[in-house]
């Protein structure tokens, strides 16, 4: 393991940026590990949540944003609920995903593709068209086997409509996306 030279870390502003975007005080974190202990997905993470918090404090931007953990977070809010320092950890995970996207450091591409497929569907129809979204996701990832076993069940139960539920004013939602992109 290479020696790290303090304070010559990757990005001194990183912590500030995250704190600002998340409106959280990360310096409060004292590494109790409650987030890691409660996280249902810790077992799947490459970096445990508490270590992510430590790396944030240290400004290790690249390592944090290229972690897989931030994409596997299910936003279940357990960490936020139990943090003794009242840090909204789940919100920070959100912010890290936003930043990773902007930096082009998405370690779990399928997650991102799924979300993009979802949002594309919302943009197009105003609501999610589940079948269309699935098709889009499969197209993006080439994972044609995704839940193939469930499709007949769902269709049989009449749970998957084959036509989208478009809203009347789709244009309004499309404009929201457009203006959002302008501002971003």
């Amino acid at each position: 393991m290479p020696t790290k030279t303090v304070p010559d870390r990757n990005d001194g502003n990183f912590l500030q940026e995250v704190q600002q975007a998340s409106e959280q005080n990360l310096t409060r974190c004292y590494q109790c590990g409650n987030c890691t202990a409660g996280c249902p997905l810790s077992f799947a993470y490459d970096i445990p949540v508490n270590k992510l918090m430590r790396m944030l404090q240290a400004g290790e931007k690249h390592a944090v944003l290229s972690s897989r953990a931030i994409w596997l977070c299910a936003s279940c809010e357990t960490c936020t609920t139990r943090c003794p320092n009242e840090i909204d950890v789940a919100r920070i995970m959100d912010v890290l995903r936003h930043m990773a996207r902007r930096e082009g450091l998405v370690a779990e591409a399928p997650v991102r593709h799924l979300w993009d497929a979802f949002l594309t569907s919302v943009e197009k129809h105003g609501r999610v068209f589940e079948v269309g979204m699935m098709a889009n996701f499969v197209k993006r990832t080439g994972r044609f086997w995704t839940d193939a076993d469930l499709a007949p069940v769902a269709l049989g139960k009449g749970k998957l409509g084959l036509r989208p539920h478009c809203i009347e004013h789709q244009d309004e939602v499309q404009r929201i996306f457009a203006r959002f992109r302008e501002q971003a």
Partner: protein
Amino acid sequence: MSVTQYAYYPGCSGMGSSIEYDISTRALCKSLGVELLDIPDWNCCGSTPAHASDHLLSASLVARNLAIAESMDVAGIITPCPSCLKNLKTTSLRMQRKAFHDKVESIVERPVRADLPIKSVLQTVLEHCEPEAIASHVSRPLKGLKVVPYYGCIMNRPPDVMTFDDPENPTSLDRLMTALGAEVLPFPHKVDCCGASLGLVRRDLVTTLSGRILDTAAALGAHAIVAACPMCQMNLDMRQSQINRANHTRHHMPVFYYTQLAGLALGQSESCLCMDKLCVNPADTLRLVDCPAAEERTR
């Protein structure tokens, strides 16, 4: 019972994968005097994909719905889906900050007050009608049915946003189910995450998390799981076969929406409640309700 009008936000899944939740929710509300007025031309709140991509986008998608609801003469906005609920509530809360409020308004291009109360259907039903009062309307008590209540991870959390019930040990479903005559078992995983949002991309994780919930429910001797979240329900119900395969288990655990069981107890028909939409066939379990002794016989 008095009638109160609410703006109703069904959520996208209510149009498809959780259609039985939507239908049974409408039926339950009607029978309890909670009048639902669909938010006209509502759009998707963006769910996790939106807030995980950008908070401004997420809030803007929500805000359009808030704005439409604000033009209605209603006591508040209610939704059956915890994921929608969290997005609606978080947005409404964050929009109390002027800077953020102005940004969102500039994207939505319409005035948004963000001042309507936002609640889950569950909260609304229980605030509207004490469980004891509901009990007096029960015509088909769920006697003999042992259930575990599964609230899902975000029905009550984070507590500062959701401000409903206890974030660690919620009891609203417990009280409701008890009032309907079911036996509610002490379930340690009431608010544990089932991993639903990763279902399409990391099925391996989902089978682990959801498997644990099914295992414990079965070990406690539950006949069924009662869910309040469409993601959780779909995950535990539709994916139960996948979970069984991955974990080498043989669970046959019906996963009801609480609105379905409530409708049943209040005398609505199984077909009206879309019991046939459940993937794990609940027929045997439902027979227990009619005839508690049936369980003895099947043993």
